[in-house]
């Protein structure tokens, strides 16, 4: 009977492709919009994501995100170093700065200052130049997207300069970095250099980055630092979600994307569900004939579920494929850098399409199972 179910499904090519593309379109809407939302939210935590060597972040207890920063004092660093279980603790600077390039144009940049001695928080992957060059006077490293924002499509040329707070900065490298939320260039420099690139304040230390000693968890160390110093301390993962949570609560992004995703889900459900439902309805007479000829309700259920599974699997594959193709084809666009489809989204879309298909199958099945086989005698 599976063979008959397959033939019934694929016999009318137009209906078959219509149903499959209905599901594929629904999956595309859900997976593409969810991926963009996730990627956008991920951008808000770009600074945390790119610091791989420290696992606990310490900051002012009233801090709400990674952009509005109330600096710590140098004594805070020493207090943190004195907490039991701290393997090491270093300064970390983060601020917005205005950078002026050679032709007079300027751009706001995300300025990151790394501990002079250890360079904790340095970019992991360099595209041009060497991380060691950051120790040179006035040295900065800019992310690849940032270079394009500053100098357009000009070929990469190390040694070129820009100006921040009347201080000269020399480009010594191009690195990979997670795109920030506001699509600003990301500029790495040493801590001592960074504080000169922004207007002076009495306190400048944005964060303290630390790592626990072996055998102590990040959470335990964070709790100890908070208890001993009164400062807010969070593990890297906690802080990332803390930032994302702030943007989720305080911006319209989740609502806008939520509406889009919900619409995608509803439209996807409507298209996929309706096309499959209509497909079953159009075959109602055939199912009636099969029932009359002695096909049991159980086998009919199996046939409909098999058809739904085939439509669901092929539609899902096409939909996810189209989403993957979208991100693959837009991967080279600087403004969309870092937008990707997380595997979790693929699973969410699979669950969604399974839900859609099961729902459509059961609504269709209800019609089929309620169908009196005697209906075949009614003209």
């Amino acid at each position, binding site marked *: 009977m599976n063979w008959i179910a397959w033939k019934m499904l694929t016999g009318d090519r137009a209906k078959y492709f219509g149903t499959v593309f209905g599901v594929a379109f629904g999956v595309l809407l859900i997976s593409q919009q969810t991926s963009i939302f996730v990627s956008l939210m991920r951008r808000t935590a770009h600074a945390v994501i790119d610091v791989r060597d420290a696992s606990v972040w310490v900051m002012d207890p009233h801090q709400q995100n990674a952009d509005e920063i109330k600096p710590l004092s140098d004594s805070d660093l020493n207090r943190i170093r004195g907490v039991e279980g701290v393997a090491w603790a270093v300064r970390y600077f983060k601020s917005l700065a205005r950078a002026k390039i050679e032709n007079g144009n300027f751009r706001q940049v995300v300025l990151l200052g790394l501990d002079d001695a250890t360079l904790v928080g340095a970019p992991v992957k360099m595209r041009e130049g060497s991380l060691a060059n950051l120790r040179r006077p006035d040295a900065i490293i800019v992310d690849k997207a940032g270079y394009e924002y500053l100098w357009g499509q000009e070929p990469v040329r190390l040694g070129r300069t820009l100006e921040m707070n009347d201080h000269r900065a020399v480009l010594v490298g191009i690195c990979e970095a997670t795109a920030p939320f506001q699509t600003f260039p990301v500029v790495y420099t040493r801590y001592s250099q960074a504080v000169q690139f922004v207007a002076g304040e009495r306190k400048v230390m944005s964060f303290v980055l630390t790592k626990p000693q072996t055998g102590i968890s990040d959470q335990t160390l964070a709790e100890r630092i908070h208890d001993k110093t009164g400062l807010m301390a969070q593990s890297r993962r906690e802080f990332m979600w803390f930032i994302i949570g702030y943007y989720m609560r305080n911006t319209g992004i989740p609502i806008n994307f939520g509406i889009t995703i919900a619409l995608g889900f509803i439209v996807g459900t409507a298209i996929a569900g309706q096309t499959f439902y209509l497909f079953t309805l159009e075959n109602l007479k055939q199912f009636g004939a099969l029932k009359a000829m002695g096909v049991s309700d159980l086998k009919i259920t199996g046939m409909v579920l098999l058809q739904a599974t085939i439509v669901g699997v092929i539609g899902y594959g096409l939909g996810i494929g189209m989403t993957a193709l979208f991100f693959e084809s837009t991967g080279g666009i600087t403004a969309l850098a870092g937008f990707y489809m997380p595997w979790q989204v693929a699973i969410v879309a699979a669950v969604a399409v399974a839900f859609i298909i099961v729902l459509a199958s059961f609504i269709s099945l209800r019609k089929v199972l309620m169908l009196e086989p005697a209906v*075949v005698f009614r003209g």
Partner: protein
Amino acid sequence: MVSQVLLPTDNEPRTTDDVAISCTGVIKDFGEGDAKVRALYGIDVDIHASELTLLIGPSGCGKTTLISIIAGLLNPTEGEINLFGTPQSELRGRKLVQFRAENVGFVFQQYNLLPALTATENVAVPLLIQGWKRPAALKVARETLVAVDLEQRADQFPSQLSGGQQQRVAIARALVHQPRLLVCDEPTAALDGKSGRTVMELIKKVAVQPGRAVIVVTHDQRVFDYGDRIIEMADGRVVRVASDAAEIAHFAEKVSA
């Protein structure tokens, strides 16, 4: 010569006196309470094996309801149906579905062929329902198509066949699993006169076999003379049964007059 594949499983020669199906006091109501409508009022009728029984009467007289009950597609509200010695009341749920699959062949007014399957594949469906392997089912289906003179159209889809050809495929499908009961609902209603006669000749020649009961519901007067027995219904009751040739001829003349 009739193909061996079309003979019923239980193909011992029988006389026309063999009662294959017996209906006793069959009542059928639809709906409940004030909306209740009685479609059949205590039908007592026998359907004989090895002959072609025509069930005639005006639209709405209960013909389709009666054959639906006989074929096990509807349950009677009251009364008893005896199918080849088995009370239908003993066949419920899965047993009844299995009984239909093994013992009943259907020919529908609108053919009800699966449009995605070729003629051969459509004919193989009853065998596949019984769990036959596909190659074996297709082989027997192809042989059955020979019996209805459609071997040249074996690989064509229903949409590529004329109405008469589609009905012949439907007849082959109804007979491929050698059922003991063949139920045909208005098999000529959608056909022109010539095609209708071809279909009736085919039913008469191929379907009517020893041990098999064949019921044809029709109000197509052109085909009355094909019947071995005519049961006339009106308003949910059997009003007349004609069984010998003279009676049938007279009946046909009377109706056509």
